[in-house]
């Protein structure tokens, strides 16, 4: 599967204080919505991801509800976080 540059960039290193928009699948619009809901950093979304026990269905559902992410966006975001977790957790 072809992964985006953003995905590779994010997965390549610890996320540190990266903003939520650095997540794959989260662009300007979704990033804005997430920030409005308090998810201003990537690690906050990671927290939600972990709280949902890395469950794909639940996380994507949550992302959809929270910021109206499309199927592709939520899939990208999920894949990005899961891969990051596989690498750094």
């Amino acid at each position, binding site marked *: 599967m072809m992964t985006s540059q953003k995905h590779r960039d994010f997965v390549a290193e610890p996320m540190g204080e990266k903003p939520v928009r650095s997540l794959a699948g989260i662009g300007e619009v979704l990033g804005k919505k997430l920030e409005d809901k308090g998810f201003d950093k990537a690690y906050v979304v990671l927290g939600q991801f972990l709280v949902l026990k890395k469950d794909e269905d639940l996380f994507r*559902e949550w992302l959809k509800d929270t910021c109206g992410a499309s199927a592709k966006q939520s899939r990208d975001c999920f894949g990005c976080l899961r891969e990051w977790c596989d690498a750094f957790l």
Partner: protein
Amino acid sequence: MAAAAAAAAAAAAASAAQQLSDEELFSQLRRYGLSPGPVTESTRPVYLKKLKKLREEEQQPPPAPPQEQQQQQQQQQQQQQHRTGGRSAKTRNNNNNNTAAVGAPPGAGAAAAAAGMGGRPLSGDLSYLRTSGALSRGLASAPDNPPGAAAAAAGATAAPALAAGGSKVLLGFSSDESDAEASPRDQASGGRKERAALQSRGGAKPAPLADGEAGPGQPAERRKPHAWWGARRPASAPEPLGAAGREGAPEDAEEGGDGGGGGGGGGEREPEGEELRWTSRPVNGSRLLPFSCRENYSDSEEEEEQDNVAVARPLFRDDSLLRPRPRRSHGKPPAGVRGEAPHPATATAGGCPGSDRAAGSLDRRRGPEEGGGCDPLDCSPIPRYRLNSKKPTPLLPDGDLTLDRKTNNHIGRGGFHLDPPRVYANSIPHSSLVASASSSPLGINHSNHTGSNHTYLKNTYQQKLSEPEEELLQQFKREEVSTPGGFSAHYLSMFLLTAACLFFLILGLTYLGMRGTGVSEDRALSVKSPFDETFEKIQANEKNLMMNSLYKLHDRLAQVAGDHECGNSIQRRLSVQEVAAYLKDLGPEYEDVFNMSLQWILENGKDVGIRCIGNGSSEDLTNITDVQFLQSTRPQMSFWCRFRRAFVTVTHRLLLLCLLLLLCFGVVMACVVLHYVKYHWTKEEEETRQMYDMVIKIIDVLRSHNDACQENKDLQPYMPIPHVRDSLIPPPDRKKMKKVWDRAVDFLAADESRVRTETQRIGGVDFLVWRWIQPAASRDKILVVPSKVWQGQAFHLDRRNSPPNSLTPCLKIRNMFDPVMEIGDHWHLAIQEAILEKCSDNDGIVHIAVDRNSCEGCVYVKCLSPEYAGKAFKALHGSWFDGKLVTVKYLRLDRYHHRFPQALTCNVPLKPSNKHMNSMSHLRLQTGTANSQGSS
């Protein structure tokens, strides 16, 4: 009403989910085999959705009773905790009952769930639930009404009913019920039905609803609600029962209102009942409101129901059973709730509407009755009974009477049976009437419930109740899908039948044809014989005799030949002796005519059906004595033989025909395939060619883009693939060229090492891009620098840099080449050619020698005279050749001859070997005037 319950159930599921506590949510998710994380504010919605989905999935297959039962029990236990100890015990009993009943009634589940919805909210939520429930009902009801004319009637009659009296009101209710019934059939959710009912009610009397809400506080109103429920039930019953049910309902209502008042006041009470009923609808909510405890109970039950939506029916019964007790203790509210639920169920039971409705009514009645039992509601049950039985007898008929009626009802309508018993049970505590009798009726009722009615309901509504609309839709879809298949099968069978018919028709025709010819031949014989010439000579009696013998002989021979044809005998003909013997057997007189007959046959010469054959081969026989055998020309065959032969013939011909067709078809197919393959090949070839064209174009674009990037550093060194495509293919062709383009892209990815495919983010969007990775410099050198070309004049010649006149006829030219860089054996010829071309206007050059070993790149030239040498000097000196500045010196002739002795004899001017002047191409383009200037 049942519909309402179902609809409510659906709505309830959602609302119920909302009100689940975190712990409940967690435990329920666990039950579905999920291990949820912490339920927090942010995760809760997600889990709720998941739970809902899981529930829906679970409902698809038949409900899983055990789990649901457990849930119910748990919920019930919770409820019990809320309740007093005594109540809890009752509820537990109910639970047991429920478990027993659970298997049977799936349909009830929806209703129960709906009820649960209403009941579930606590006192605080009650108002919300009511309103929501009422609204939903109203909304849903409108669409559902159409199915039953009753629905329309309900809406229309509702208003009049109010004015007219309880009976009319009942009618309105009944219409609601009918709607509910219709709706299940329509696959509409029970809730709709309920809603429809509500709407009709609401449409008729919106005010009453308000009253009901307001009224909760008043006990009378509460009772009324129950009564109202009772009325509804009657109404539901009325469909089967008729007016009686309606009447009964009003009575019930009245009774409820009166708090166990006498049945005699029914007429007067009816109006009240109507009011009560109206109020009662709202009442569901309102009832609950007044009795917080009851509400709690109902809520818990409802929750259970909601949870067990699929198992709703069992719950239903359970609820009804359970509720009555709690209701007794608490009052009417729960009963009302349950009553609604049962109604839907009853309504839905199309096959046994009466019984189902009865059951529903029973449940409801129980509720009210029970409630009445606790309070003044006892009366209501009785009226209901009356309604069922259509007997307006006093409210508190003796137990026996009621029992009888019940039994009657049971016989006629199973559902009603149940009601009476329940009523009894409910009423027993409160009213003196029932007393001992109640227990047995109850049992009966239970049995009835569990009986066919329930099962029927299950069958019809199991799925519908749980997920009515979706299931129905799916079923519809399936049916739609299946129908085409059926059609095709139908057509296939029709086709086969037609083919078989055709086949046998052909067979029959063939057979008939063969037989027809046979018959005609026979006739021909008979016709021919009489008109024969020789025949006239014979005397009349002998003529008859001979004809008879001939006929017999003909038949006999035909039979023999037929047997032979059919394979029954080896012999095809009879010998003369055999024939004679045969004729002798027939009669001595025939034997005498035999010879004459033979003679006649021979002389006749025509085909009479008998052929005489001699010993020899085929020569004509003229003498009787020569005849050895007789043979029939028209074999006579039996029917079966004929049939078999016809069949074989037809089959044979058909087979041949088929083979021929197959052959033709095969040839055609082969041609088609060939053409297609050819077409395919050409197309593929064409595509491949286009693909390579495209690849070349792409590479050109990328290369030029790369060049542009070298000059303009602002440009990105890569190009998005879609952009390349759009720049190469005009919009109208893009669709057509898509395949070609895709192949070209694949080709580039696989076989083009100078292009790299990668992902780049451009303008915030990820693009697949191409990057040209071949370094630009090396390529430029190779391509741009031509070899062995005159490149122009470095300076103008004047006195300072050239001698004024030519001194000798010999020249030494330097810097023409670098021996290290030259490749091959014949490069010196190219240099020679270049000099001759440069001096093309000079025809005095007689000798050129390239010193291949000189590191200065020296070339020696000898001209005819010093003048020519001067011309050559001017043409060559100071020119750029192959990137080097050429210089020329005069050389003394003797030294030249000393070095190149062979030049002594050279006096023929040399000319360029061709007219292309390749080495001058650059010069002509760039500095075409330099030569003329130099030469002048």
